[in-house]
């Protein structure tokens, strides 16, 4: 299998108020193509910091991070921006869509910063294709405030996928969603993953992590557990189960 991301003894130390905070203390891991990894941990475990490093938003204090054959630790600010544009798709907890901007324009955004020089026609076509893929083909011109939370997260996923990244990073993607919509989004992730998209997801919810193939658990900036998920949940089955449970209490039609 192709190795997409490799962390070797990565450390991250923040200097705040004259005090050194060791957010990540020597993490080494490898992510292969086609994996669906959930990184778990309590707050303060360093999972957000690790996520920022994996997403090339931050550089490790020491250690090396090789993403798709490129050593990230040595890159400049602008080179990192280009790596993020080409190789990484972000999905955030708070969706992070541009307000007063249509779904289509939100999805076009990464293409506008791409150095590939797409014409505006190609940009549009690709953005439409992505929105259709996440099931929002009929809501291209809707603004984020006209969309439900689940739909907004789908727009964000479409935006993450539009530049065909080697890796999709999702930071608490279901944190702002109800259980029904959460399962929908997990279903979308599983579907994308089945089609070959590599996904790394940070979450603190055990059941959400069970939709992934592999779980990495962090504590105090160290990996304490790295296991294959044995009883993996299937989003379709879970959805059916939830629906029948909701029917029983007349919550759903």
């Amino acid at each position: 299998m192709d190795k997409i991301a490799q962390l070797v003894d990565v450390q991250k130390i923040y200097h705040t108020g004259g005090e050194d905070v060791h957010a990540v203390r020597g993490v080494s891991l490898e992510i292969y193509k086609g994996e669906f990894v959930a990184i778990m941990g309590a707050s303060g475990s360093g999972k957000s910091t690790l996520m920022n490093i994996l997403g090339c938003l931050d550089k490790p204090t020491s250690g090396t991070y090789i993403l798709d054959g490129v050593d990230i630790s040595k890159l400049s600010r602008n080179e990192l921006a280009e790596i993020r544009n080409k190789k990484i798709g972000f999905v955030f907890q708070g969706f992070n869509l541009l307000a007063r901007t249509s779904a289509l324009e939100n999805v076009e955004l990464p293409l506008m910063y791409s150095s590939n020089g797409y014409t505006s026609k190609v940009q549009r076509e690709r953005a439409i294709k992505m929105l259709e893929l996440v099931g929002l083909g009929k809501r291209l011109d809707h603004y984020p405030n006209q969309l439900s939370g689940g739909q907004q997260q789908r727009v964000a996923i479409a935006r993450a996928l539009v530049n065909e990244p080697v890796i999709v990073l999702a930071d608490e993607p279901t944190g702002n969603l109800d259980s029904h919509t959460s399962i929908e989004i997990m279903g979308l992730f599983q579907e994308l993953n089945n089609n070959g998209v590599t996904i790394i997801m940070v979450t603190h919810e055990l059941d959400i992590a069970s939709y992934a193939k592999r779980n990495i658990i962090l504590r105090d900036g160290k990996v304490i557990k790295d296991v294959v998920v044995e009883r993996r949940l299937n989003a379709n089955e879970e959805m059916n189960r939830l629906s029948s449970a909701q029917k029983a209490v007349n919550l759903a039609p």
Partner: protein
Amino acid sequence: MRIFSPFIIALRALQRNKMRTLLTMLGMIIGVGAVIAMVSIGTGAKTQVEAQIASLGQNVVLVFSGSVTRSGIHTGWGSAGTLTIDDARAIAREITGVKAVSPEVRMGSQISAGNQNWFTSVLGESEQYLEIRQWPLAAGTMFTENDVRGANKVAIIGMTIVNQIFNDEDPIGQIVRIRNVPFVIVGVLSPKGLSLMGQDQDDVIIIPYTSAMKRIQGTTTLRSILVQADSLKNLPVVQQQLTELLRQRHKIGPGKDDDFTVRTQQEIAETATATSRIMTALLGSIASVSLIVGGIGIMNIMLVSVTERTREIGIRMAVGAKSRDVMLQFLIEAVTLSIIGGIIGIGVGVLASKIISSQMGWPVLTPLTSIVLAFSFSALVGVFFGFYPARKASMLDPIEALRYE
């Protein structure tokens, strides 16, 4: 696409907040509008002054007779009577580049016709006088060279005199008495209005200088000589030759003062336009202050905008915007604000000066250069005041920006 996308990104961002965009532009609109209006008023005043100076005649050199000092009292220019008719003839004959010459005498006198009388200035001039001053006749003809040679009793009169002593009658062919000497009116001057000093230029009667000297004043000397050069280029040469010729004729040794004064129209024009030029500069610089205030308004809004849109900047950086992209976006936003504000301001300024000119009756002229200048200045204001906020935006840390509430 790479070239246009920053523009599209910036324009989309401006479109998202129309009210704020408009209010920010208002600063620029007022600033540029004020500059255009003020410069228009100043330039209008200047052109009016210039037009009046041009009405003195083109490429004219004035030679005044010197002043006399008698018992320590200086009399004014023209009083010494150092210029003679022979001097005037010599100028016409000997100096190259001279197109026309008019010897001049001048006096104030009571004139009468029928039972009406009026005090006016009487000018003794040559037949070329109107040509030199570019002063057309409204009716009749100018007196001729023969009239001048024969010291004939003919006169042309200004419009004020027509109104004062002839009422609505046709004055041509009528008799007007100057110090009881009867003159036949042969022509009426077209009205010229007030001079720069506020004198009524139409309150005048012009007769041959020979007639004025022999029949009225009884003098043999001239007050001044009007000389017209054939081109602006020749003006300094004519001026210099004139001085040399007169010094020679008046036998003035080297190192001695002239007994006459030579002044060109340029010198008179420069003094007169200097005032209006200063006024234009003053008005323009006061208005420029409001342009700068408008620029500070843009900077203010852009700074607020950067803070308010920190999260947006974070998102853009996360999906791959480089520092340069973010900087360019905010810079283009600022410049777009200032340029569109500038364009509207030019329209407002032109409109305002039109209104001022029609309401106040002031002459107004909007020079093209001031429009171009105001436009480029407003673009410059956008770049200058947009730079700091744009730079601030581009330096943001993406992680911090994404976390910003």
